[in-house]
């Protein structure tokens, strides 16, 4: 700051300044390219390139380890996908999973963030604990919950037995219970990140606004609606959109917990595409699945944005 206040002491001739400015801008343009290239080249070669290549593959009959050359087959993969009931099953499960995880995740996170924003004892502990699921490798989260859900040696069934709520069951292999059981893990794993984001937003809300609203006699719900929510809405919308996408694309958790079983009840689209590509070697077909997933994600995002606009905000 001292530097900034010292600047006006050294005025320069006006003409020299403009020419120097132009010079600097030109230099900067060159310099900027030089600064950007180290990141730009890997992005183009390893991200944008493969993405376009992947889209192209969706229109070929590419397979792994095949000797005859790959051929363009137009939209044949997509036509096959249309009739692939297993794929649409997994798709339905994927949507159910994405919404069924994102919504409770958001509501629970909002509740926790509001609590953590109060002056409560033990909130330091809750903050510390909220880090754990976020920092853990997804594979470990999956393993951990397998231990919790374990039919004999798991703590869940033991607790249920203690509470006299029946003999417990094998949650992860029951046809009806597998998907809800995995969803609980999804909520647990993603909730803290959302909490932290919302909490950051809450802490940027001026406390005086709340106090003024309370003085005017606004109840808790009214204060939330008129003061808190407008303040955190941009963050809430951004984080829930990201969560929706991340959840739709998730893989590791379910791979470890159920590997798509029982009977495909938890086979998320990513799991399906992974098996198609790397177990059966159907690269072209799996790429077509990827394209359909991108399309759906775009639609989800668009819907989200429309909702955002309709609620009348520039956020």
């Amino acid at each position, binding site marked *: 700051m001292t530097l900034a206040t010292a600047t006006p002491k050294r005025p320069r001739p006006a003409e020299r300044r403009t020419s120097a400015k132009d010079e600097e801008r030109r230099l900067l343009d060159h310099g900027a390219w030089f600064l950007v290239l180290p990141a730009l080249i*890997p992005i183009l070669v390893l991200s944008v390139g493969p993405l376009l290549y992947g889209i192209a593959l969706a229109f070929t009959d590419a397979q792994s380890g095949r000797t005859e050359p790959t051929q363009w087959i137009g939209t044949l993969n997509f036509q096959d996908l249309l009739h692939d009931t297993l794929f649409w099953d997994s798709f339905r499960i994927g949507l159910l999973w994405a919404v069924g995880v994102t919504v409770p995740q958001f509501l629970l996170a909002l509740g926790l963030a509001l609590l953590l924003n109060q002056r409560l004892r033990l909130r330091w502990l809750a903050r510390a604990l909220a880090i754990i699921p976020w920092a853990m490798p997804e*594979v470990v989260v999956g393993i951990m919950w397998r231990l919790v859900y374990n039919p004999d040696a798991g703590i869940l069934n033991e607790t249920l037995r203690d509470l006299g709520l029946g003999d417990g069951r094998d949650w992860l292999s029951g046809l009806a219970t597998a998907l809800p059981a995995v969803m609980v893990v999804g909520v647990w794993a993603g909730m803290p990140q959302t909490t932290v984001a919302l909490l950051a937003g809450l802490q940027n809300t001026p406390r005086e606004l709340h106090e003024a609203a309370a003085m005017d006699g606004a109840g808790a719900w009214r204060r939330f609606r008129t003061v808190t929510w407008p303040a955190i809405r941009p963050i809430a919308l*951004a984080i829930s959109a990201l969560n929706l996408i991340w959840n739709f694309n998730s893989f590791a958790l379910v791979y470890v917990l159920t590997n798509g079983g029982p009977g495909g009840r938890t086979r998320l689209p990513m799991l399906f595409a992974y098996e198609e590509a790397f177990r059966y070697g159907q690269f072209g077909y799996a790429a077509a699945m990827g394209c359909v997933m991108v399309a759906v994600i775009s639609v989800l995002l668009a819907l989200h944005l429309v909702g955002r606009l309709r609620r009348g905000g520039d956020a």
Partner: protein
Amino acid sequence: MRTSGAARTGQYVALLAYLVFLAFPFLWLVSTAFKPARELGSLHPTWIPENPTLANFRQAFDEQPLLDAALNSLVAALGAAVVAVLIATPMAYVMARHRTTLSRMATGWVVVSQAFPFVLVIIPLFLVLKNLRLINSVPGLIMVYVVWALPFALWMLVGYVRAVPAELEEAAAVDGAGKLRTLVSVTAPLLAPGIVATALFAFITAWNEFFFALVLLKTPEKQTLPVVLTHFIGAEGVADLGPLAAAAFLATLPSLVVFAVIQKRITGGMLAGAVKS
């Protein structure tokens, strides 16, 4: 602001419920890791191991190449973190300071890349890396991780650069410092904490990553920790619970420590990104 006694009590009950929900799976993991086989076979498991033992840890190391896997993970994560930050920092600087078409496109890419289903990227990457003979190699994995960590690294770093007042740089320029000198002696020191936080975040992301590692690393001696952990779960889903828990517990410790250190900064970066996007 006054809160009534009943409301306070309600808040504490809710907070306790959250504490239990957040903590119990992790506590159960730790408890399982220290239980001898006999207690793990019991039909009435207890929270506290009656005869705590380290046998599971020994067995875990005997059954799977955990040390090699940890070393692979370390190399992959360190490599990804260092390279990602080295190439992201200059770009983030340009994105934060100059609103050119390029930086707008880069911002767009950061957002869009969050929506990629990895399967659409991994198949072509698999083919490309195979042709480069970089399949089943940690350097190949590092290349993938760098690009994968870039969007968030850029996102965080742009926020940190914006937090450095441009007036400081202008002042240095007026005082006669060249562009490079300004960057090195004025901007870089102020950015350093943000750069470290970003590197640590990239490290954890790579340390925890599973999907790319699963696809790209074929032989056990090349695999990273998350992939090796899944070998403890047999093909039939039958697992040796004790060693599984022990290995999983060990794999978590580094990220927990690093994360505890940088959690505040990540929050800040995330917030900046969320609001500005």
